[in-house]
């Protein structure tokens, strides 16, 4: 093939690639705005609750103490948290449970002693669901979605 022809084809492909990139930009923005508006709706209500559990003879027993599950639920020893954890192993800002992209995520906020999900220490954000048990130190909470 002659050079001008190759150049012409490459020009067309490169222009198409530019358009595809532009399209992808708009698509991502549109998705992002859709998610944002869902999240705004979600922020207005309580989605469930966190039940404080007590471990008796290796079994979890629910206590009457429950906390509302908000779209951003913070856990920690600090009194401003949605779930104030009274535990000597808890950091001030220990962990968060957040609704992101339609799913519930548990994240450790670089706490000193770590956060466990169903007994396994998490090292990155994980998806949580109904019935999961979140543990901070010796405090355990069961997630109950509505």
């Amino acid at each position, binding site marked *: 093939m002659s*050079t001008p022809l*190759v*150049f*012409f084809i*490459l*020009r067309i*492909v*490169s*222009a198409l*690639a*530019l*358009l*595809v*990139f*532009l399209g*992808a*930009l708009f698509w*991502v*923005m549109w*998705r*992002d705005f859709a*998610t944002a508006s869902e999240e705004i709706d979600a922020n207005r209500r309580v989605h469930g609750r966190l039940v404080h559990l007590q471990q008796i003879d290796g079994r979890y027993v629910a206590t009457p103490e429950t906390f509302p599950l908000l779209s*951003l639920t*913070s856990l920690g020893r600090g009194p*401003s948290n949605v779930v104030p954890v009274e535990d000597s192993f808890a950091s001030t*800002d220990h962990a968060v449970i957040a609704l*992101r*992209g339609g799913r519930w995520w548990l*994240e450790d906020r670089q706490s000193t002693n770590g956060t466990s999900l169903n007994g396994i220490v998490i090292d*990155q*954000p994980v998806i949580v669901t109904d019935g999961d048990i979140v543990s901070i130190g010796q405090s355990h909470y069961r997630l109950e979605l509505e």
Partner: protein
Amino acid sequence: MLPAQAERILLVFGGVFLTFTTLALMVRGTQGRDWLPLLVWIVCAVTGHVWLSRSLPWRDPLLFPVAMFLGGWGVIIIERLTPFFAERQTIWLIVGVLALSAMIAVPQLLRKLRDYRYTLLLFGLALLLATIIFGTNPSGQVGAPQLWLGFNSIFFQPSEVLKIILVVFLASYLAEQYPMLRALQTPTGRRNAGLSPRILGPMLLMWGLSVIVLIWQRDLGTATLFFIVFLLLFYVASGFTWLLLGGALLIAAAGVVAYALFDVVQLRIDIWLNPWLDADNRAFQIVQSLFAFAQGGVFGQGIGGGSPGYIPVVHSDFVFAAIAEEWGLLGVITMLVCIAIVVTRGLRTAARLNRRPYLSLLATGLSLLIGVQSLLITGGVLKLIPLTGVTLPFLSYGGSSLVANFIIVGLLLRLSSEEIDRGA
């Protein structure tokens, strides 16, 4: 969709465009046939993406890929226009991505910036003063504005750093005065108590010093940028509508005064009003730029197909004209959309953080820097407004500018993953 997924899609599509553009340049280009910028871009994009995904999982998904796309496009344009500078620009791209990562890696950075704002600003002003004494111009021309500090063959423009420092200073200062600015009725019974000299004084002093030093150096583009961003930020913090009107009048007044005082302003305004009187001489640059736009049409001449080389120093302030000639309206729109995305995502971050004034104002100020600077230079190159010599963010040749813009994007990324309302 997770931010990381969206980011990956955008980076891949951006990379596809850059790859085909490099290929076209190899086939057609009379100069600049090098794979290196593309390879460096891919490495930077992949490492940056992986690192961001680990450290900021809930960041804004558009900022990083758009900044990388513009940065990579810029390097390829430099490679096509002035291959001699492309190697340097490629290195600056690496430095830029490292600077962006540093903004995210430093713990409690935003709080530290607020706590040390006076120190930072004095440091910035000291750098600027050093430029007055030791300043050089990399082109080595006699009489050219000496806005750079040189170490061997590395040149650095302190005003690029100062603009970020100034925005940090203004954001933290205005956030501190926020209750006063927003108070409708103060204990003393005076409305507009936010305008008392006690509140305005330190801010006007610091900002005035910066602008005076810039005017002293004849860096009028950056002085204009500071002035506009300052006014807009003050307007956002206080909500006084008359600030905008008053500011516009002040700019007009400053323009008239500067027209009488500075030759360069007189020249810029004369050729803005009518470039055709002196099209071969003093207005040569702007006239050639207009020809480039006309030549580009809708689809452009293709990379390497046009002759933007007729525009003097096209790789720096006039890179917009090179895009118009070689990528046409399509390229111009894509570029403007990309910059608009950086600005609107920044402002969206600011709106999201509206319960934390410092972070909100910081995000506003940083996005305004990019937005106003882009408007000044794209408007200037198109002869819509008098030309002010500022760089086109991400695309123009210039290390300090590229690194400064990556620092801004790094800070915006960090702000975008801050939580909505918890103590800073």
